[in-house]
């Protein structure tokens, strides 16, 4: 997934759409918006990022999970099988993105890239709702996918590259 920080206005429609799409409990978030100010007035900069699980290539959360609940599915999305999860929070400690939370039902929960939608060719709810078109989703290996095109043509960065986890959430600059 790509997040275009130039387009994003930080409205949080992505958060509301995710919450209603996935019945995310009150006080819990699978995605969220960060605003960071830098510079000195009048030369200020504001970076706005819609954040979520980075579905890392080498997910520390999966390595840390003692029960196998946290796993990588066939397509590369990092998921939690609720019925295998003991709620031990080892994955939460391992995640540098703070992308996981304890669901009131006791298991760990997080972004699924709306697998129930995307498996059938749809878009995640956050991407679908985004009024500024800041979010794009697709197959990183498909040159016809919007994310491939964006990453081929735009400068981008990832959060916490130093961890070596190879995150799959790309922030376009």
């Amino acid at each position, binding site marked *: 997934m790509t997040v275009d920080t130039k387009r994003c206005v930080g409205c949080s429609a992505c958060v509301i759409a995710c919450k*209603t799409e996935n019945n995310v409990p009150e006080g819990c978030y699978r995605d969220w918006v960060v605003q960071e100010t830098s510079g000195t*007035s009048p030369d200020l900069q504001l970076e706005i990022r819609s954040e979520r699980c980075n579905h890392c290539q080498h997910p520390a959360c999966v390595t840390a999970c003692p029960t196998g609940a946290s796993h990588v599915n066939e397509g*590369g999305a990092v998921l939690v099988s609720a019925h295998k999860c003991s709620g031990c929070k080892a994955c939460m400690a391992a995640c540098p993105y703070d992308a996981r939370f304890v669901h009131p039902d006791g298991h760990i929960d997080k972004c699924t890239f709306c697998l129930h939608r995307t498996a059938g060719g749809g878009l995640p709810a956050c991407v679908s709702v985004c009024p500024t078109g800041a979010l794009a989703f697709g197959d990183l290996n498909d040159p016809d996918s919007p994310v491939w095109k964006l990453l081929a043509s735009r400068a981008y960065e990832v959060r916490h590259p130093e961890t070596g986890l190879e995150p799959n959430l790309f922030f376009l600059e």
Partner: protein
Amino acid sequence: MGTFSRRQFLKIAGAGAAAAAVGSGLSTRWWGLDPDPIPDPGTEGDRVVPTFCELCFWKCGVLAHVRDGVVTKLTGNPDHPLSRGRLCPRGAGGTGLLYDPDRLKRPLIRVEKRGEQQFREATWEEALDFTAEKMLAVRREHGPEALALFLHGFGGSWFKHLVKAYGSLNISAPSYAQCRGPREVGFYTTFGSIIGSPERTDLENSRCITLIGSHLGENMHNTQVQELADALARGAGLVVVDPRFSVAASKATHWLPIKPGSDIALLLAWIHVILKEGLYDADYLAKHAVGLDELKKHVSDKTPEWAWTHTTIPPEKIVETARFIAGARPASVIHPGRRVTWYGDDTQRARAMAILNALLGSWGRKGGICIPSSMDIPEYPYTAYAHKPKAPADMPKGSSYPMADEVLSSGVCDATIPGTSEYDIRAWLVYGTNLVKSLPSPARVQEAIQALDFLAVVDVLPVEIAGWADVVLPECTYLERCDDVYAATYKVPFLAVRQPVVEPMFDSKPGWWIAQEIGRRIGLSDYFPWKDSTEYAMHRVHAAGYDCDDLRRTGVIVGKAPPAFEEDGLELTFGTPSGKIELYSGQLRDAGFDPLPVYTPPEEPPPGMFRMLFGRAPSHSFGRTINNRLLCEVFAENEVWVNDRICAEQGLTDGDRIMLVNQDDARSGPVRVKATRRIRPDCVYLVHGWGTKEKGLTHAYGKGASDSDLVTRFKTDPIMGGTGMNVNFVRLERV
């Protein structure tokens, strides 16, 4: 396939896509094969009903997904020109209103003194009889004009009709004199047309967009923000004039952190530079405009150096931005703004913005300001209004605001205080607007309310004004009712329908039914011949020759747009007295006002005080959404923005709780400080609508500060009666 390990798979995929920007990665092709799938949350629903939103007044098309009779989620209607398949957070969060446990559930009748909030539940029969009896008494004793209707929102049309049939023209919305009114008059006197809503800007084709205090992106009018984002992605320039480093400012090519209240000085200096350097569209002006010579003379001494002293914007920056804006003409638009009731000279500021648009040749041009169209649909036939009412009472006795083209809510409120206007208002019907928060000067509003014979409130939530009512009539939400058909005036004309998604909850009723039932009880049955709102709306659609089934199935019928721009062959016409763009306004001159905008410096904040500015958050529509639990998950309460250096001086740190105390010793409730570089040191900023004192709003009660409580003063625009509210100063007091 299931036998591949993940690493094998990635290796294969990586080899097949050597050009992939990031090497191996996520591949959606393989999804669905997971042996341990994630359960589908099932929110897609068993049926989808198209309707349109009422969380703000942009009226986006939404698709309501319903499962087992419960609305699970709201998504954007891809066919609707105002949503294009996408929604803002409020639109997506409408279920938070529908399922708000604090909703008004049953009619209420006051049992104690007004304002003491002692109510008893009543049946609809009793509440409607009571309302009818009071309305008849007002008409009998004082004439029908003594009843005023205040309204906000699309469902208000039913009550407008009721009050017109009853015989009063005192029908007003605070969205005029407290919001966009000055801009309408400023543009009307210049171009002969108002801006209207949705704004007729063509941002998607703009090469340069200039925002004067407008905070698009935080003001989240869906399509407008979509267009802004698209324009920026295309490389359009953006100039933002704002004392605050707004979200829009953060995306701007030029941010001008102007001293609050000095916008007219900047605009005149820009006009000066553009005229002096010959950067204006001379052919366009020669063809369409009058008054260029007078304008040139008027701004000859309005140099960037002169403006610098007022605005604090360096002269070279003024020159640079003037050239930048003019360089993109005619696809360069000075956005007219939305809430523009700031300093009492707001019509003149809007005039300066309109003049600048004229110099850029942007009116009627692509990337500028379009000429919108609408689909013509006949009225539902009903008996002509019998009574010829007196003119509205919204002007003070012996004076007037000659250019006002709508009724002034603030004026009608004043007319309720006996002896203020030509005649007294004795009763209010209030639909969907919390006047306690939307009108300036809370003390004056309270005085007016206490002078009333009768106050009826129709609303979805127990907002403050409902606490003052004699009778409270609980309306169902927009997701539970059909309203009139919406024939938009937009660059693409369309019809949209609001249809009930689920049955009304509790004992709430749709507005059309409430209005009709009151009408029946006061002898106005002839004016309400329709079976219900669906029959009403569909009758109109059918009479216009459109397919009702089609409309109900898709939620929208998009018409064919006639040319909206001169480039497309549109012949531009102007509804001004001269039939031309009036740079110099003879109309204003004849009415005794400055024919060209004049800058008057605003009053300075006293030492130790800061000008209080207020605006919007993308996830809220002023006080209407503060109790929406879903939306509060992303914005739980407002904070007061204070410059970080000021915080350091006053020993305040981010997150401290303080009170705001204004020049008249009005105090806010405790509010958290946002210590930030993103605002000038001479002002503070609040998101409007918070700090409710209404305990019935259990989620919002006690959260944030009320800017409205601090607007004890306002400055009235002499041209059209708008109430400039950015004239209050506050100091910061520790809790």
